[in-house]
């Protein structure tokens, strides 16, 4: 029994220590954004890697999510004779929950894993050490632009997701199932309030930062060669998915 308690205690302590180290890592990374050189070019490269290259997967996921929401919503609402509220149901689901969460999960799977692998390989091939010995801070050159890019790209991708999802819902609800186009959009305009949109934006900001923080942290602390990179990449995808879902609950409880 004592052994079990020691085991759990050790596990909790290491979890708290890891969380603390990650927070210090985040503060150092973000703090370096205010110290010259400002790395505008590196930031644009990371926007390309994290944002632009994730567009296709976000568009596809959004379109199908919107279509499924419209299909499910239509048959449920029809039972109560409220098909006209389909636009409202689709938009609220997307803007409040599905948009930020699914965008974050897609970015985590595509860009988060790539970021971890990139930094992890730089670690094991001594490229980070090489930067350091050239008096270039690897945190500022490698990590900081990625953190800022995550913070900018994920909310924009979420906005793209929301709009594409709503259009996917329109395609199924209006074009295929015959809901009136006017009621689809007017119910949306009436029911979506600024708090919904602000909540979505805050969520996507938090998710974006979380995903890229986990990806950078895991990559930066990679050890033990190629196997270590594989392990770090795996941990990034799992941990960022769990954190996104946990954050989603916490933030939703604030915005309800």
């Amino acid at each position: 029994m004592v052994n079990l308690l020691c085991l759990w205690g050790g596990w909790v302590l290491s979890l708290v220590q890891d969380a603390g180290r990650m927070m210090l890592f985040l503060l150092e990374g973000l703090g370096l954004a205010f110290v010259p050189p400002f790395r505008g070019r590196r930031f644009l490269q990371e926007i390309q890697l994290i944002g632009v290259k994730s567009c296709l997967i976000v568009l596809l996921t959004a379109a199908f999510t919107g279509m499924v929401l419209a299909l499910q919503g239509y048959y449920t609402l029809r039972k109560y004779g409220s098909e006209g509220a389909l636009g409202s149901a689709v938009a609220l689901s997307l803007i409040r929950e599905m948009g930020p969460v699914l965008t974050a999960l897609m970015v985590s799977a595509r860009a988060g894993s790539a970021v971890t692998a990139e930094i992890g390989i730089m670690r094991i091939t001594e490229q980070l050490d090489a930067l350091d010995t050239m008096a270039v801070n690897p945190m500022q050159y490698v990590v900081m632009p990625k953190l800022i890019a995550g913070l900018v790209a994920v909310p924009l991708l979420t906005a793209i997701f929301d709009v594409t999802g709503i259009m996917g819902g329109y395609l199924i609800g209006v074009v295929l199932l015959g809901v009136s186009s006017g009621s689809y959009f007017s119910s949306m305009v009436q029911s979506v309030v600024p708090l919904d949109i602000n909540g979505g934006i805050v969520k996507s900001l938090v998710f974006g930062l979380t995903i890229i923080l986990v990806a950078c942290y895991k990559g930066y602390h990679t050890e033990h060669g190629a196997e270590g990179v594989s392990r770090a990449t795996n941990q990034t995808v799992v941990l960022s998915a769990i954190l996104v879902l946990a954050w989603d609950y916490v933030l939703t409880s604030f915005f309800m």
Partner: protein
Amino acid sequence: MIQIIDLVKSFNGQVVLDGINLEMPQGKITVVIGKSGVGKSVLLKHIVGLLKPDSGQVLVDGVDITRLTGRKLQEMKKRFAVLFQGGALFDSLNVFENIAFPLREKTLLSETEIRRRVLERLEQMNLSPEVGDKFPDELSGGMKKRVALARAMIQEPEIMFFDEPVTGLDPPMTNTVFHLITKTHQESGYTALVVSHDIPDVFQVADFVAMLHQGRIIAYGTPQEIQHHANPVVQSFIHGEVDFLEA
């Protein structure tokens, strides 16, 4: 002049460096030899400030680098250049951009001047200008080492560090790299530390040799002195005798 005084470092309770004392005279090439895994690269990483020791000092012209932080440490690092074991070239940049990297980061030179200097370094390393367009994964091991040496030399360092510069290279390329080290040393007059287990090839570039064994320097002297050193461990190592305890 670099002085290492009573340097101690352990990882997870295992002592790797157990009170290292070593001097690297100004303008000379000091070679640290020893078996694989004995801590040669760990020693090098302490001198360039990548690792902090448990105790001891690394004095560079009287300044203890282990106590420097922030801007002062960055300023000190500008005096160094390191040739890493695998080259540590940046995968995402081509050869030209790799060599130009330190100039772009640390100077305000014009593009024309950067181009001139990069081409000059490529020529110095017997590499054609066309190599500049290739990416690191398109290069052979020897070419990677030469490109990495060009990137190190373009910083015009006062102190050069070479971490296993010829490991994994064939004999002609080994000689080429040692020739380039000798040539650049004669031209620039830098102080150098070479970490290597390539015996006896490494003696051709050494002014002084130190042997690291079980966390301590057990022999120090000129290459001739080391080759005739009385310590049986040194003799066993330089003659490549089978180590049954390790095998």
